């Protein structure tokens, strides 16, 4: 079952914050987050394995609410390098959501 991501697209000015949500109709045991820049392969950001687990990667962090079957990715004080499409993935065979396009303006 494909997870649902929201919003579909975000435009920010450098330094602003963003939240990307990922939800599933099925029970979640893990959530993966990846970022893909235009013309490149997706790159791993983080995996969340337990309900309530939070992780951070530079100024990018994520939370996982197992009960609500959702995860959120937080980008604080965004930088130009954060532009790209963000995907969440769930399940053993990793089914990805449709992605959230993030564009950072200088």
């Amino acid at each position, binding site marked *: 079952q494909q997870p649902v991501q929201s919003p579909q697209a975000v435009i920010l000015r450098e330094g602003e914050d963003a939240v990307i949500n990922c939800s599933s109709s099925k029970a979640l045991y893990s959530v993966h987050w990846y970022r893909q820049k235009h013309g490149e392969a997706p790159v*791993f950001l983080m*995996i969340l394995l337990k309900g309530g687990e939070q992780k951070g990667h530079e100024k990018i962090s994520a939370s996982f609410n197992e009960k609500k079957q959702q995860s959120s990715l937080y980008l604080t004080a965004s930088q130009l390098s954060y532009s790209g499409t963000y995907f969440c993935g769930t399940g*053993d065979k990793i089914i990805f959501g*449709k992605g959230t396009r993030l564009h950072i303006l200088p």
Partner: protein
Amino acid sequence: GAGVSQSPSNKVTEKGKDVELRCDPISGHTALYWYRQSLGQGLEFLIYFQGNSAPDKSGLPSDRFSAERTGGSVSTLTIQRTQQEDSAVYLCASSLAPAGGPYEQYFGPGTRLTVT
């Protein structure tokens, strides 16, 4: 060390022809995945290999698509009688173990397939 490699990087074929796409995973990675990404779209799951278990083929869009993994390493995705809607970037990824565990996927650079 070497990452995931895919060949060819680009393939242009005529409608109706068969194509083979190759993926060399990272050595020691037991899990291997194929995805398809159409222009501007998301990552569509195709097939998943894990060790010696039977592959999960639930994402293959039609019986024209097949994949095999020889010796638990190299994988080949074959598309028979290609159609224009098969045009996309085909991405391969590998990981140390099933993705339900704490293991990240490493993606190859992809093969861009164009069917004319």
